[in-house]
Structures are given as C-alpha cells and as structure tokens.
C-alpha cells in the first residue's frame, strides 16, 4: 500500500521548511517533504498526498510549474503557494492557474494552520476541483444573483454594480472554516488593493484566514450583519454573508483577473 500524507511540503529554505514541517507535525498532521519540484514529483508518484504546500521560488522549476502539473495530474489535490513576493500579479496568476490559495511569507502559525486546515477539509470532502467548483454553492444560496458575480478563482467574488461592488468569499471558505470566532473587515475609507488581504477570519481552532481583494477600490461600508453573525459566511456566502461594499477605482484594467462562470450558473436566477 502506498504511504499517505496530509501535506506535501515543497520548500528549499531549510529554516522555513523545518519550521512549517514541525508546526504541521506538532498539530498532528503527517508531512512529506521535498526541496524542489523534481523531488516533489517523485514523492507524488510514490505516495498519496491530501494537500500540496509549495514555495513559489524554487531552484529549477517553480511552484507555478508544480501547480500546472498537479492541476493536470491530480486535480483533486488543493495546492497552496507560499510566496516570497506578496505581489498582486503572483496572487492573480496563482488563482488563474487553479491554486487553492496562497500564503505570503512571513506567516505565523495561525495563518499557516488556517489555510492548510481549510485545504485539508476541502480535500477530505472531495470538494476541490481547480477547473470548476465541485459544489454549486451559488445555486444553493437562493438570495444570490449569480449573473452579477465575478470570481477570483474560488477564493472571493465581486458583484459589480456600476462603479461600486460588493465583495464576499467564494467556495474555498464556506463549510471549511469550522466555527468562526471573529471577522475583521475594513473600515469605510480604507483603500483596498486587488490581490492584497482585505478581510481576516479568525476561527475557533485558533486559525486566521485571509481574504484577498478581487478588485481595487475605496470602502464605503462593511457588512454589520455578518460581523454580528459571522456564520453567514458559511451559510450564505453569496448573499447575506457579503463582507464589504466599495467604490471601484480601476474596474476596466482589473476585471481581466476575474472569471465569469458560464454554464455552471444554470441555477434559479
């Protein structure tokens, strides 16, 4: 029988590698390790892995190469990219290529565990499909208006209405977070940059989950209802569980990063 691991960690820096491996292990997760893409491919061939956590900048092939390969060979495995450069382009690129999420360095324990646990749960439930969401949450959210939604991968969405938009979380959060302890949302007047963190979700397992903004703009208001009842993020992420409303600053240049889901949105309007 082939050995099975929760996480395949691909990281060339020994300090980060060791730290991430130790923390994940101490949390009770089984960790398989590789220092570069070739070694990772060899490990993938010889063992089962629930989640792949890979650095972006690696000697030889990059994390993006591994991501592309996995999206082809093992589409059911969520891939989390560790990025040294927390740049907008990397983030957008990662989602376009089917990444589950990305984790900018330096991260703390709560952020690391948050994203890994969320991916693990997604993999365990067999909900992950990098090409298209495996579960039609939009259709399930009866109040959602899918024709207005634009998605940043399966990570977040924006409902655009003229020069304003509403942001919320997409499939990689609801049902995967467990009990939500607190939400931290931006204040009116805050400027959000596409691809950078705009919301933090703290969960009962002492994890932090970051939400990256699908577009840039200035915040008008954040959803008071979801702040009081954070579980709306789990239950109605496309309607009442929206997070922030804002005035968009550069829709035309930025909307290419987002996807419009045709076909899968055949649910009731």
């Amino acid at each position: 029988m082939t050995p099975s691991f929760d996480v395949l960690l691909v990281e060339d820096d020994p300090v980060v590698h060791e730290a991430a491996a130790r923390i994940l292990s101490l949390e009770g997760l089984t960790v398989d390790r590789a220092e570069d893409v070739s070694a990772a491919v060899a490990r993938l061939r010889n063992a089962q892995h629930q989640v792949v956590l890979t650095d972006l900048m690696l000697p030889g092939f990059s994390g993006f190469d591994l991501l592309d390969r996995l999206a082809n060979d093992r589409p059911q495995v969520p891939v989390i990219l560790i990025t040294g450069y927390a740049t907008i382009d990397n983030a957008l690129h990662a989602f376009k290529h089917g990444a589950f999420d990305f984790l900018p360095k330096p991260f703390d324990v709560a952020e690391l565990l948050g994203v890994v646990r969320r991916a693990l749960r997604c993999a365990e439930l067999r909900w992950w499909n990098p090409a298209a969401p495996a579960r039609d949450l939009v259709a399930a959210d009866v109040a959602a208006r899918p024709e207005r939604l634009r998605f940043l991968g399966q990570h977040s969405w924006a409902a655009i209405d003229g020069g304003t938009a509403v942001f919320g979380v997409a499939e990689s959060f609801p049902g995967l977070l467990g009990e939500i302890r607190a939400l931290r949302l931006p204040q009116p007047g805050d400027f959000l940059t596409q691809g950078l963190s705009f919301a933090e979700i703290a969960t009962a397992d002492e994890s932090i989950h970051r939400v990256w903004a699908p577009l840039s703009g200035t915040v008008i208001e954040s959803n008071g209802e979801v702040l009081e009842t954070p579980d709306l993020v789990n239950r109605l992420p496309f309607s009442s569980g929206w997070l922030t409303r804002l005035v968009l600053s550069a829709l035309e240049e930025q909307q290419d990063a987002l996807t419009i889901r045709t076909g899968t949105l055949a649910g009731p309007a």
Partner: protein
Amino acid sequence: MKLRIIHRVLAAVILVLVAVGGTSAWLGSRAQQKALSTRVERDAVLLSNTIKNSTRHAMLLNEREMVHRIIELIGAQPELKKIRVFNKDGMVIYSPDKQLIGTTVDKHSEACDVCHLNGDTASGELPTGGRTREFVDAGGSRQLGVISPIENEPACWESDCHVHSRDQRVLGVLDVTMSLADVDREVASSRGYTLLLSLLAILAISLLLSAFFHQLVGRPVARLVAATNAVATGDLAHRIPVTRNDELGQLATSFNEMTVRLAEARSQIYQSNKLASLGRLAAGIAHEINNPLTGVLTYSSFLLKRAGDDPEVRHDLETIVHETKRCRDIVRGLLDFARQVPPKKSLVDVNEIALRALQVIDNQLRVQNIRVVKNLRGDLPRILADPNQLQQVLINLLVNAADAFNGDNREIRVTTGLGPRDGRDMLEVIVADNGMGIPEKNLGKIFEPFFSTKENKGTGLGLAVVWGIVSEHGGVVEVNSKVGQGTTFTIHLPLNGAATSGDRSAS
C-alpha cells in the same frame, strides 16, 4: 593670464590712437615746417631785392665802398648767414665777411648748381622757383640760400665807367643765405610738445578704458568665471548677484537660471538613481529576510500558542510575535515600494482621484480636527495615469500633512490646476499644510526610503513611494517648507496623451 581681453582691447585702442595721432602730428608738423620755410624764403627773397635795390645806385656810380658798406650793414642781422655777390667768373666781389672777398667759387658748389647744372656755362634763364635751395652746412644746421642774378640793363652799359658791355645778360649773382635753425627748432619743439600730449592722451585713455572695462566687463566676467568654476566643481548652490540690466546682467540671470535647473535636474537624477538602487537593494533584502522572518514568526507564534498561562512568558513571546509582525509590515512596505510595477494608465480625472483620496482619510482628518480646503479647478483635462497609484500618492501626502501638526489651527489645502514647468504646461496637484514645517537640513532627505521623523510611526516609505510613483508617471515632486509656517508639496504631471473635456466632446 587674467583679463587678457582688456590687454587686447587696449592694444587695439593704443594702436589706433598712435596711428591717427601720429599721422595727424606728422602732417601738422610738415605743414608747419613748410609754412615757416616759406616765410623764411619770402624774407630771403625780400632781402635779396632789398640788397639789390639799395646797392643799385652805388653800383651804377661804381661806388664800391658804398656797396660794401650797405651790404655790411644789412649782413649784420643775425638771421643772415651769408651775403655774397659774385661776378661772372665766380669771384666774390662783395660780402660782409671780408675774408670771402676775392675768393672764387667753383661752378660745382651748391650755390652754382642751380644755373650751372652741368658745370659749364649757365643755361640762360634761371628756372623760376629754382632760385632757392636748402642745404646743410658744415656745422650740421640747415640753411636756405636764395640766388638772384644781377641782370644787365641799359643804365649799366650806358654808365660812364663802361665796365659792362651791352652783350652781357647777367652781370653777377647775389647769394643770400639764411639760417633755418630757428625754424627747425620751432618745429622740433612743437613736435616734442605734440608727442608729449599724445603720450599723455594715450595714457589717460588707457587708464580710463581700463577702469571702465574693469568695472563694466572685467568684474562681472570674473564673477561669471568664478561661478562657472564653482558650478564645475559641483557647487550648484552658487548664484551670481545680478545688479545690472545689460547683456552681462542678462548673462548672469541666465546663468543663475541654468544653475537652478541644473541643481533640480541633478537632484532628480540623484534621487531617482538612489531610489532605484535602494529599491533593488530593498527588494533583495526583503526577499532574503522573508525566510528568516518566517522562521522567527512561525516558531514564536507556535511557542506563544503553547505557552500556557505563565503571564511573563506569554508577554515576552507576544512581544516577539508583535515585533516580528512589525518587521513583516516594514518588509511588505518595502516590497510595495520596490515593486516596479509599471503604472497601469488610463484617462483619469485628477480631481476625482483627489476627492476619493480625501474621502479615504476623511475619518482620520476629522478625528485630528483638521480642516480641509479644496480648490479644484473645474476644467481640468483628463490625463493618462494609474488611478490607484495617484490615489496612493495623494493619500500619502495627506497622511504626511496630517502628521505635521502640533498646534490648534490645522488646515490642509488641496489644489489642482495647470501651470508651466520647464517650458510646458503641466497638471499641478498641490497639498499644503500650515503645520510645523520641515527643517532645511531634512528637505533633501525626505524622499529617501526609511527617512522618518515620526518616532515609531509609519515606515518612512510614504514619501519615497510618492516620489517613485510620480517619477514613473514622468512627473516631478517639488517641496517647499518653512519651519513654523508649513509645507507645500507640488506634483507636476505631464499632460501628454491628455484630452480636455472639450476635445473629447468634440471628437
């Protein structure tokens, strides 16, 4: 070596003076000499006639003693050098100088040359104008000789003495020689006087010219040279005092303007180069430091998570986690700064961006009790720019201004408009505060990354980001500040590719 030009000008002026003065002096002296000589000659001719006329009677009576006495009397005048009366054979028959009487003069001597051109018999008529001659005597002084022939006349051959026959045409020659020494002396003294005057004039003109030149040209040129040297050695703060309105004054003004532009250009290039290399350095460091920071942050946050209830340990670990996260924020700021993302430009309304930026930090301004005065020009053309980056620029400037207050009267003025810069119209965005101002020694540093006067507040990247973004847009940031009065940041953005609202509606 210095002031060679004055030497050349002086040489030229002196040359001209000498040429003009010398020629006129020479011409004058010649004219004078001629006039004087003519006078002497006239005197000599007059005297010759006088002698002939006064001795005529005595001669006709053949009263030789009488003739002698008359000639002696006339010859006593000092101006008269010599009086001689020759007979046809060239023998002196009368002269005040008794020793000369009886001597014979060779036909080849100077006095005879006039008529006896070839040394033989006289050629009839004495040529008119040829009766006078000038020569230098043995003593070296010039003499004027006048010869007048004593012609035969009926009274001579009809007189009782029968000395002269009727056939003779010329009976003898009267030669009067007068000294030209007086004339020469007078001319020489007048020439010396002219020379002295000329020298004095040249000296005076040279001195005057030197003084004028020194004052009008030499000193300003020396100042220009000194300024050029100062600029050449890098002192771009050097200015020439402009005190005049002439060409040199204009040159000084142009020079000063050029130096100001040079200083600006140099500081821009310096700043850009510095920022570019700092950006690369920062990106490199940020990349390298991210891994160790990840180690520190993960381990410390993990330890904190497992620290239990010991408040002291928790506190220490919390400090480590907090400070590490602060490092993370700094690194992220650095990466934001170093991230050389070319601006994603679209046609934007800068007024709109300014309003949005104000809206973003409206809360902060209200809490800090800061009054905002907006003066946004209505017909501002749209320009090609990255709206997010421009908004970032304005927010950074506003935050910077908001942190500049320590008194009660707090006001930020945001102005947009058009203004000329470097000879072309540019869009201007001005953010001015009446806060505490920036000391002059810090003005050159404020755009440097990590330069901050706010203790533990901010990353020191705000203005560096402003500089970077504005430079990427082909613009310029200008800062003016007076301690105690406030600071004004002016952003100049190019209008290229811009379309005014009028153009847009027309097309």
